[in-house]
């Protein structure tokens, strides 16, 4: 069982890595990191600020796009193109397929993030000529970005199990936008009344809490990220992804593969 999952994960990774689209997006992200060095020079004293803000935002956004892009290929595209049939005709459980796919994609994204991080820190080093202890928080911000990838991938996978590639992408991206304002949604919920309140309270707690993963402006100002936040965010990402995977498995196990 474990070998099969590992095999599927590795195959997913291999397939993703050889896809040229991935490279283009990574290159583009790195270009933006580089260009932020130029933008920073426009106003004195904020070069590091601009680099961190712009660079990390680029990594985050492009990474999300990549995650969705490949994520929708996980199941939707496989069904459309029928690559799935020959895999499932083998002694592979459907749930193993889901878990393996997810693992492969998370691996891909982590490697991506790694490359983009290297580019980013290279730019930072070029700018400041040495690393400071406060730069450690940049790693935390990057770690949170990777957690975001994990979440969005799990969501893209979930939508893949029952809708077309395009709709999966739309749903996943919509949830990303909504999740970015999750804290505001909860604020809104606490101020409303009646049916609206009940609806808002429920929805605002079920949407993925992307808001808490964005600490970019904090670390840009060299503010510390509390250890407790790192701990809870990690747990949240793991749990939420697990929920998405469980739902994916439940749907996928029952689905007619037309």
């Amino acid at each position: 069982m474990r070998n099969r999952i590992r095999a599927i994960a590795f195959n997913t990774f291999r397939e993703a890595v050889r896809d040229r689209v991935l490279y283009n997006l990574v290159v583009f992200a790195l270009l933006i990191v580089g260009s932020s060095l130029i933008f920073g020079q426009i106003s004195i004293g904020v070069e590091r600020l601009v680099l961190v803000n712009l660079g990390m935002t680029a990594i985050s956004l492009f990474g999300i796009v990549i995650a969705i892009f490949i994520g929708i290929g996980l199941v939707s595209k496989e069904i459309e193109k029928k690559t799935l049939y020959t895999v499932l005709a083998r002694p592979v459980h459907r749930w193993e397929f889901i878990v393996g796919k997810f693992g492969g994609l998370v691996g891909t994204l982590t490697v991506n993030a790694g490359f983009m991080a290297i580019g980013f820190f290279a730019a930072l080093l070029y700018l400041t000529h040495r690393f400071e202890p406060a730069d450690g928080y940049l790693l935390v911000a990057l770690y949170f970005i990777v957690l975001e990838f994990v979440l969005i991938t799990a969501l893209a996978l979930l939508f893949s199990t029952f809708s077309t590639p395009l709709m999966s992408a739309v749903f996943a991206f919509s949830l990303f936008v909504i999740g970015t304002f999750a804290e505001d949604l909860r604020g809104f919920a606490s101020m409303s009344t009646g049916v609206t309140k009940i609806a808002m309270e429920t929805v605002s707690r079920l949407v993925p809490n992307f808001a808490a993963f964005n600490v970019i402006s904090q670390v840009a100002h060299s503010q510390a990220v509390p250890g407790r936040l790192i701990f809870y965010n990690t747990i949240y990402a793991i749990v939420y992804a697990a929920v998405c995977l469980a739902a994916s498995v439940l749907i996928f196990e029952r689905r007619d593969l037309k």
Partner: protein
Amino acid sequence: MQRNRVTFVASAVLVVGTALSIVTLHKIDEVREGSALREVLWIPSAQTVKRMSLGYDGLLADIYWTRAVQYFGGHHHAHSTDYQLLKPLLETTTTLDPHLIPAYEFGSIFLAQNPPEGAGDPTAAADLVKKGIRENPEAWRLWYHLGFIQWQELRNPSLASQSFLEGSKVPGALPWMRVMAAALAQNAGNAETARYLWMNIYQSTEDKMIRENALKRLAALKSDEVVQKLQNLIDQYQQQQGHYPSSFQELISVGWIRRVPLDPLGYPYQIQNGRVVVARPAELPFITKGLPEGSQASNMPRNPSN
């Protein structure tokens, strides 16, 4: 069958996981409390936010507006004295959407009042309202709010009178703006004027928090009035009897009043060392009379300047 076991495990993960995620979410919110709001301090300028909003400034303005109200409400509920983020939040809101009149109104009251009822920065409040007037010349009510700040918090009745006058010139302004201008020119510091202004605010706004605030103000004015009358009575008593009454029962027994007077909260007024005092001053913000000895009015303006 394998499939049933898988279904069971997956369903269990789904249910337990969802519950766990909500619990963790709660913890995250605790740690993050105010983080999203504190970020507003690091925005180099409100203009930057506007540029970054990619044209969705209306939506973003609503988001910042919601955050501002929630921020204030939350801190107020916790009896905090720190409202330092209110100004940048309202600044950002009104830059993103200069026509969001409720934001100016909110700021005119809650930026101006002293903590814990506000940020205690009437100058900032006045500046905000002036910005609102610039962006919305047809909004005559903003002149009203400006005049109000200048009179109530900045203690400058002549400036206030001018504001009301300017506002009365705007097409559509109601006639009493001119009346107020005149009244302020003559009769600054009058409790009647104050009552009139707060009544007006109460009636003309739909914002729940502003209305509650106005009610508290009116209650405080009423209390001040009653305290003054009672004080006069016991001073008289002292002159006649040679000592202050120890309680209002004594005034009842000599037939000067019919029953023990109650403050707006429903508690009886008390007499301490020849002074009329309210039973629970902490619950009656905005009163200026009837405070126990040694304590100061919680809402005396701190900088009586322009």
